[in-house]
């Protein structure tokens, strides 16, 4: 009877690769680190951009009454589930050479990836902020009216006083951006050393069978999300102790 050679299965490769993945992480492998740094920069920039638009937009919708407001709220909530590949495709069409914004020349650059992720994250931040601020507005309305606070002052006050609750909103946006792969792979192109992020690299390396790098990136991605959430939680608790 012919003896079967010990062919490594996917599982055994993954297990042996696990050790290599840890080595990659703890040795701060330059290839891995460049991907990690780019991913953090892109996701943080996208969340910052989305916050600049989403927070005031959420506050504005929370404070104003206009015909069709309910429809806007439903639409905003629905947009939280925007499919990343559809957003990626739309941004691709906008930024491609023949598209209306083709002259910007930013397709397949981190800028395009930031725009795509910001589009995905803005509805999440706006919708969650709207709910948070509307609840606070119900509480503050009479007090601010009595102090003769104008519309812009109201928005600024509510955003500031809801800041600890809004941290959770920003974290939800960061989670969406950090975990997203469909949009950035379309508009970024997954170019090594330039537009390759953790999620796109994990998808690519897994398909190539380079499980150590994929696993290492996966570990780093989860660690980043945990650390960001832990820091935000600590800051929130400290802030609440001071401000109530």
């Amino acid at each position, binding site marked *: 009877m012919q003896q079967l050679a010990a062919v490594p299965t996917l599982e055994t490769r993954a297990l042996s690769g696990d050790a290599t993945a840890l080595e990659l992480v703890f040795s701060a492998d330059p290839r891995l680190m460049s991907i990690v740094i780019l991913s953090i920069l892109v996701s943080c920039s996208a969340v910052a951009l989305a916050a600049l638009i989403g927070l005031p937009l959420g506050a504005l919708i929370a404070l104003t009454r206009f015909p069709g407001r309910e429809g806007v709220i439903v639409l905003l909530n629905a947009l939280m589930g925007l499919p990343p590949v559809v957003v990626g495709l739309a941004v691709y069409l906008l930024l491609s050479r023949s598209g209306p914004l083709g002259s910007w020349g930013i397709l397949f650059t981190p800028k395009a990836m930031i725009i795509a992720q910001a589009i995905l994250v803005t509805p999440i931040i706006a919708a969650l902020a709207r709910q948070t601020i509307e609840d606070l507005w119900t509480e503050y309305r009479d007090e601010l*009216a009595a*102090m003769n606070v104008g519309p812009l002052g109201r928005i600024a006050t509510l955003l500031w006083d809801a800041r600890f609750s809004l941290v959770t909103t920003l974290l939800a946006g960061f989670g969406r951006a950090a975990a997203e792969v469909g949009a950035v792979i379309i508009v970024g192109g997954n170019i090594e050393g330039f537009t390759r992020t953790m999620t796109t690299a994990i998808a690519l390396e897994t398909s190539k069978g380079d499980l150590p790098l994929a696993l290492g990136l996966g570990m780093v991605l989860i660690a980043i999300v945990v650390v960001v959430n832990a820091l935000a939680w600590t800051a929130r608790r400290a802030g609440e102790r001071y401000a*109530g």
Partner: protein
Amino acid sequence: MRAPGSELPIVLEDVRYGVPGVMILDGISLTLMSGAPTVLVGPNGSGKTTLIRLAMGLIEPESGRITWGGIPHTAPQRRAIVFQRPVMLRRSAAANIEYALARAGTARSEWGPRTGELLALVGLAGLGERAARRLSGGEQQRLALARALARDPEVLLLDEPTASLDPAATKAVEDVIRAVVARGIKVVLSTHDLGEARRLAGEIVLLHRGRVIECTPAEQFFAEPKTEAGRQFVAGELLL
């Protein structure tokens, strides 16, 4: 919309206000002048809170007219209000006062001294850095008074300011109200507490079922009420 030179007198002329199915205030005519505190009394549901909110300009009457210093529809400049359950901004006690100072246009250089002075006035010196929402109910009510005073009001409207406080906290709030009156600020206060009305009132306005039943100097009201409802209220027998 022109700001009045003075917020007083606040004049309500045949004011009606209601919600669907219920008339809360019906044909109220009342003039609030400078001078001794005006205390709105009446059983629960008589319309005291609604009248205070109308006098502050927080809600619009369905019909009738309200003027402040002779001018209708003026934004609150030198009138302030303290609600039955004050809303504390999610900031420190001192920052709550500083917020009101900023809204009133007080120069930033004066915030520190004014905040310290107001905290001392309401007996909260030393608690400025505490989170406002972590103060006790009585402390929050006094902080709300300090925040209202930060607007340097000519008239201060107080909606049952001691309704949910224990006797010690009630006394502390009443002491602050007396200090406010001593500064020449017109106080308009609502309460269903006869004892509080006796202690603070210069003038009594008795409300019942959305109407002004009596508007009399306090001494006269408690000694010899003009109406049967007034007599019943003083006897503690006036129910809704």
